[in-house]
């Protein structure tokens, strides 16, 4: 008993550890979190998969043994208790009960016994009558024996649930793992290349695995997560995904999703077609197939990468499927584009014109990572459709360095043709030394009559440098420069004049660009739209410092392929567990709401009269039984007096 409580507490504490320390993450995450030393210590203790470690299973096993022993020890006594009326109870014991009463009435014992027995029956008791030595009768009564059965039911239920649970815990696999017979694969391999040591045949015991099947593809295996890697579990049939469908709420949240599956099995006369959805699995041959998630199944992306360095070269066409890596040559060196995900739509909350909250679909987006030769990568999300803001249209692109950060969004202004051309040209012109210098020289020409002959050259150099810093690294770099060079009191003023210079220089370049390259007639000045474009461009440039990409990749075409995430389980122990659960629920209610109570009425002839000794005990629950006893006593008295 003490052992049982200790075990209950121990299991609880172990369970708590498993909830506080997130389980089954990639091992790298734990190394980062705990450092190499503690990582090893916790790994040795099995804390990354508490519920699968041997010591936890031993704890459960002990609980199982202890409960089994307990049930076996108590069963005979309980069954005896439920069946025997104990008519041979000693008078002395009856008088020693807390609840007993004695009184005398007229009448013969046998007749009184019948009458009192009947009354007890009316009160819901089972009764049995017998002789009690010589001239006395005894009526034994009991009620609520199911309460005792409740103990048996609920405690054996715990044993049964544990057995079912162990059957589904796949101990043979754990054993094979610990003896090195199988090995978790940690590399990302095509299924055909996974070594045999990591593949489990389809006739094995229980498992719970997952697999993503793209539309139009099929799989006859699932992946089982094991410590830091995975195993491949073969299935005795093949599952093909015909179509995946998803519906959304107006907020963009998924409302429902379902998959049309086709099961191919030699034993089937024709393939089995069935649609599964969340909460509506398919059970085939004891394998339960659940709709558990969805993802991209390798959508085809077509991207146009506009170089930031050579805006007049033809945009580079990048084509590939989500999940693929595409090598790209850029003026800044080799890069790899890793296509990560595609979203056919993006719904975000926005403020409507009347101030109320609304939602807007920003259209399709592609997420990719851009890795340079040294392995450093930035992640980008680029939207396909132009995004309006104010009166202008923008190309929207977000960047971040790790998946846990929010994206930093850039709004690149689009020109009259909804193209990035003008913005890219403006930027490139500003970066181009010769061009810049011409502009600066023109500006400086207005600074007439300077004493220092070299001054214009110096000023010109520093202006060129300033503008290029701004264009290449953004406003942050300019601010940093001001902070490192000017005394604090003058920083504000300095920054203001720097920004002025930048704006004027770029403005001049912009006007040139409009006039010369786009052939605009600027006789009436720059139009309001072109004016706005310049402001938007300045904003975009000021933030582009950390963009880090040699190109801007526009999504121009796509063909969506979805994948359905299936969870497939085989749990032969499930029905046993459910049987245990039913027993547990019944047992607990019996235990709590049916109290085993015994009563005895001993009636002894005493001349004309009979002496009645009424006694009873209740299994636990003193208070209520006391009340019931008093009530019964009053009734018996009344009946015996009648």
């Amino acid at each position: 008993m003490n052992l049982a409580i200790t075990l209950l507490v121990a299991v609880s504490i172990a369970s708590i550890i498993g909830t506080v320390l997130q389980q089954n993450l990639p091992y790298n995450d734990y190394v980062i979190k705990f450092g190499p030393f503690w990582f090893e210590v916790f790994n040795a203790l099995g804390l990354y998969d508490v519920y699968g470690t041997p010591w936890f299973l031993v704890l459960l096993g002990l609980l199982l043994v202890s409960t089994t022993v307990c049930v076996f020890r108590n069963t005979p006594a309980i069954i005896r208790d439920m069946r025997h009326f104990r008519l041979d109870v000693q008078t002395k014991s009856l008088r020693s009960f807390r609840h007993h009463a004695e009184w005398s009435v007229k009448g013969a014992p046998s007749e009184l016994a019948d009458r009192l027995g009947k009354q007890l029956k009316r009160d819901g008791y089972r009764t049995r009558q017998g002789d009690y030595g010589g001239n006395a009768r005894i009526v034994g009564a009991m009620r609520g024996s199911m309460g005792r059965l409740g103990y048996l039911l609920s405690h054996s239920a715990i044993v049964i649930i544990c057995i079912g649970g162990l059957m589904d815990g796949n101990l043979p696999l754990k054993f094979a793992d610990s003896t090195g017979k199988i090995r978790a694969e940690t590399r990302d391999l095509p299924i055909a290349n996974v070594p045999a040591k990591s593949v489990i045949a389809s006739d094995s015991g229980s498992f719970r695995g997952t697999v993503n099947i793209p539309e139009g593809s099929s799989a006859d295996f699932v992946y089982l997560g094991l410590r830091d890697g995975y195993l491949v579990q073969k299935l005795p049939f093949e599952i093909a995904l015909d179509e995946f469908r998803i519906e959304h709420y107006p907020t963009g949240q998924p409302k429902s999703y379902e998959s049309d599956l086709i099961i191919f099995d030699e034993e089937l006369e024709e393939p089995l077609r069935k649609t599964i959805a969340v909460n509506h699995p398919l059970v085939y041959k004891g394998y339960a197939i659940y709709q558990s998630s969805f993802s991209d199944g390798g959508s085809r992306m077509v991207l146009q990468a506009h170089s930031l360095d050579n805006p007049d070269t033809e945009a580079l066409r990048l084509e590939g499927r989500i999940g693929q890596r595409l090598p790209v040559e850029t003026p800044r060196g080799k890069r790899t584009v890793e296509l990560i995900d595609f979203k056919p739509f993006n719904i975000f909350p926005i403020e409507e014109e009347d101030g109320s909250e609304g939602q807007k679909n920003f259209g399709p987006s592609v997420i990719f990572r851009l890795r340079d030769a040294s392995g450093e990568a930035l992640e980008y999300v680029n939207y396909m459709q132009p995004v309006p803001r104010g009166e202008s249209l923008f190309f929207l692109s977000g960047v971040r360095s790790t998946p846990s950060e929010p994206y930093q969004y850039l709004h690149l202004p689009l020109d009259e043709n909804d193209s990035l051309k003008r913005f890219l040209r403006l930027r490139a012109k500003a970066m181009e030394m010769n061009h810049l210098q011409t502009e600066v020289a023109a500006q400086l020409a207005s600074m007439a009559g300077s004493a220092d002959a070299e001054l214009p050259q110096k000023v010109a150099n520093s202006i060129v440098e300033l503008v290029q810093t701004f264009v290449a690294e953004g406003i942050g770099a300019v601010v940093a420069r001001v902070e490192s060079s000017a005394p604090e009191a003058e920083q504000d003023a300095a920054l203001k004049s720097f920004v002025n210079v930048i704006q004027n220089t770029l403005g001049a370049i912009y006007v040139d660009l409009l006039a010369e390259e786009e052939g605009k007639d600027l006789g009436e000045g720059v139009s309001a739209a072109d004016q706005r474009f310049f402001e938007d461009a300045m904003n975009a440039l000021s933030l582009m410092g950390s963009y880090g990409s040699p190109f801007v990749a526009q999504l121009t075409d796509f063909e969506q392929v979805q994948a359905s995430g299936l969870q497939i389980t085989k749990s032969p122990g499930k029905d046993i567990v459910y049987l245990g659960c039913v027993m547990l629920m019944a047992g607990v209610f019996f235990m709590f709401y049916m109290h085993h109570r015994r009563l005895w009425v001993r009636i002894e002839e005493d001349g004309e009269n009979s002496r009645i000794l009424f006694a009873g005990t209740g299994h636990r629950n003193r208070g209520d039984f006391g009340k019931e006893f008093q009530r019964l006593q009053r009734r018996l008295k009344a009946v015996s007096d009648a």
Partner: protein
Amino acid sequence: MSVPHEYMEEPLEQPHFLKRLGLFDGLWAVLLLAGTVYTIANFSVLMDRYEVGILIGTGLALALFGWAWKPIRPLGLAVAALSLFAVWAYGDTLAAAETDFFLKYLFSSQSAIMWMSALFVMATAAYWFALVMGSTFSGKVGTALTWSASTMGLVGLMVRWRESYLISHDVGHIPVANLYEVFILFAVITGLLYLFYEKRYNNRAMGAFVLTVVSAAVAFLLWYSFERGAHEIMPLVPALQSYWMKIHVPTNFVGYGGFAMAAMLGVAYLLVDWRAAKNPQSAFVRRMPSLDQLDDLMHKLIALGFAFFTVATVLGAMWAAEAWGGYWSWDPKETWALIVWLNYAAWLHMRLTKGWRGKPLAWWAIIGLFITLFAFLGVNMFLSGLHSYGEL
């Protein structure tokens, strides 16, 4: 002063339970039957067969429940009448909530829930006043307020159910799907549990303690609503779109209600014990139930909570098996449910097999509430927090 019912005189021959039913009981059953039949006739196209089963089961359970505990009948009628009135006042547009006087100030779900909150807090004050000042009248006011609060809470839930369908058919669902909704459920269930035992033990002094925990829940509810806008009706994620939710969640909250009330009785036990040691004749000690009664009641409530919690956990496992593909995945919520369950199993063992009574169990019941609270709030707040940290 606290004379349990059982001690009162009663007839020699207790007629059979069914024979004790009166006209009102019959009417109650007929109304429930009519309601069930009407619902099936009109709405069964919207329900799967399990939901029809749950509906019939609910009708039966309510009939029996009303027969066994009579005050449920007027409560049920009031809730039904007010909810139907609100549904009628809405017609088929949510906008009526702004224009219709009754909806705006009384029976739109948000107003009803605000009324529930106010009434529960007032009931708490009335019970405390009754306990401290020895005012019988104030105690009765507390009882009336608690009944009214429960009525308004249930009306709020019923109307919210309808409102979710008015938003859109896709969004419609029974309001036991998020923390905000289940807190209302918790307050109402705990209030009703208390009212049951108040009558049974003929003692209103416990109300001050039990209603305090209900008021705490109400405080959370208000904070959650005003600070976080939690009262907005949100559509359901696919995993929650299941008939299992309809039985799993309410069962769970009977369990939580039992545990919460047991913990408050634990507090009462410790206070009475402490006062009685100093002055057994103090007014507080005389007004409260005896230590034995408190101890006994605490046990009953933990047993009740444990039984329902057992059922709820099993239902949860069956649901998980259907939605996630495994009846047990050791995810934090499941694991904490197990911890709560093991904790109260240990509590019951101590009482039943080791014969523990009184103070240690009272303390343990209070600690148990914190464990329960963690399972029900903390897991969502902290472990998901750890979770996202873990994914850094």
